[in-house]
């Protein structure tokens, strides 16, 4: 029997994916929001570079913005940030000059073919089936400006947690299970049902991406990968829409 603080295999949903993610992702973030936020403040270098390279006046999305740490990177662009957790959206709201809403990645409340850029950092790994992960990418790509003559089109930067991270404190690697429950331990936050000194443990569902899987999902979603790589235990890719499958 494993300790509650060690990642465990996920029992995947049998049909009710939305309900499964509600319980194993959304409800957890609602509860850990402020603690989670206090541990998330340093932007990852590639995300920072992507945002700083944008032209002033560019309009974009931060899908699954969490506490909004990337909203502080570039104040010359305008970002509509969204998160599934209202508690996280409330924390992200303070970043100027941007704006924050609550939305679901599979049903983004944004017009088609409009945005100059989008980022979605450490989000799609919370969707519990391959189809839903591809749909999420397709939904992000839908909002981007398509390429036109002399214009490359809007770009999306997507990050997902990597399976290959044997040097991280998590230690998992190629060949290990990809669908897991990862504990979030909250210490020193007494609540009605927890004594003050006992840490409270929440479990979030993750699908760990293996090498090339993110690129494959982007291709299946009708996207075109411009650049991709590995940073901070995550796989990342910058993608645009391709002409044919963009609708």
């Amino acid at each position, binding site marked *: 029997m494993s300790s509650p603080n060690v990642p465990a295999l996920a029992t995947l949903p049998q049909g009710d994916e*939305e*309900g499964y993610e*509600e319980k194993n992702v959304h409800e957890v973030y609602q509860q850990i929001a402020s603690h989670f936020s206090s541990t998330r403040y340093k932007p990852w270098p590639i995300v920072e570079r992507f945002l700083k390279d944008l032209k*002033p*006046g*560019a*309009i974009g999305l931060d899908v699954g913005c969490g506490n909004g740490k990337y909203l502080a990177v570039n*104040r*010359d662009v*305008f970002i*509509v940030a*969204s998160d*599934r957790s*209202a508690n996280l*959206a*409330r924390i992200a*709201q303070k970043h*100027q*000059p941007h*704006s*924050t*809403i*609550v*939305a*679901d990645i599979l*049903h*983004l*409340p*944004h*017009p*088609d073919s*409009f*945005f*100059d850029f989008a980022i979605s950092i450490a989000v799609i790994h919370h969707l519990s089936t391959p189809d839903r992960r591809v749909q999420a990418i397709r939904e992000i790509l839908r909002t981007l400006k398509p390429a036109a003559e002399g214009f490359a089109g809007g770009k999306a930067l997507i990050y997902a947690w990597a399976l290959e991270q044997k040097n991280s404190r998590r230690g998992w690697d190629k060949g290990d299970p990809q669908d897991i429950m990862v504990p979030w331990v909250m210490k020193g936050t007494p609540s009605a049902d927890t004594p003050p000194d006992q840490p409270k443990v929440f479990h979030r569902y993750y699908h760990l991406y293996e090498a090339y899987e993110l690129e494959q999902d982007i291709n299946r979603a009708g996207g075109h990968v411009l650049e991709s790589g590995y940073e901070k235990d995550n796989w990342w890719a910058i993608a645009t829409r391709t002409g044919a499958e963009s609708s």
Partner: protein
Amino acid sequence: MKLITVNFLACAVKGCKAAPASYPLHFRDAELELQELEFQPEFILNIIPRIDWEGMRVMAKELGFPNIPDNKPEGDALKDERLLKELHRLLLETQVVEGRLCCGNCGHEYMIKEGIANFLLPSHLGLVIPSIAFLNAC
């Protein structure tokens, strides 16, 4: 929620995005609040090209701001600092703290609470959508 946000929003219901009536979303019972923000003329100048002017005029009119120019300012008009300040005030400093956003196509209403609009659909909230309720658009 800053008023500029509405320019970049559409109904979350998939079938609505192609329908012209779904854009822009319409405020209902909007409670407005002014939250001051440093005036950056360059920022306003840079985003004007990306504003859907007609969508913004519709919104401004519905909220009772009638003094928006009919056409998007260009050329010398952009040197008018008073105009840029007015746009700054309207788009970035005017916030909707409570109210609803309504889709003109399906009639669905999205709640705004504490300045944050919530676009989760009834299915996300574990509810079944009664289709009849969506027949009368706002």
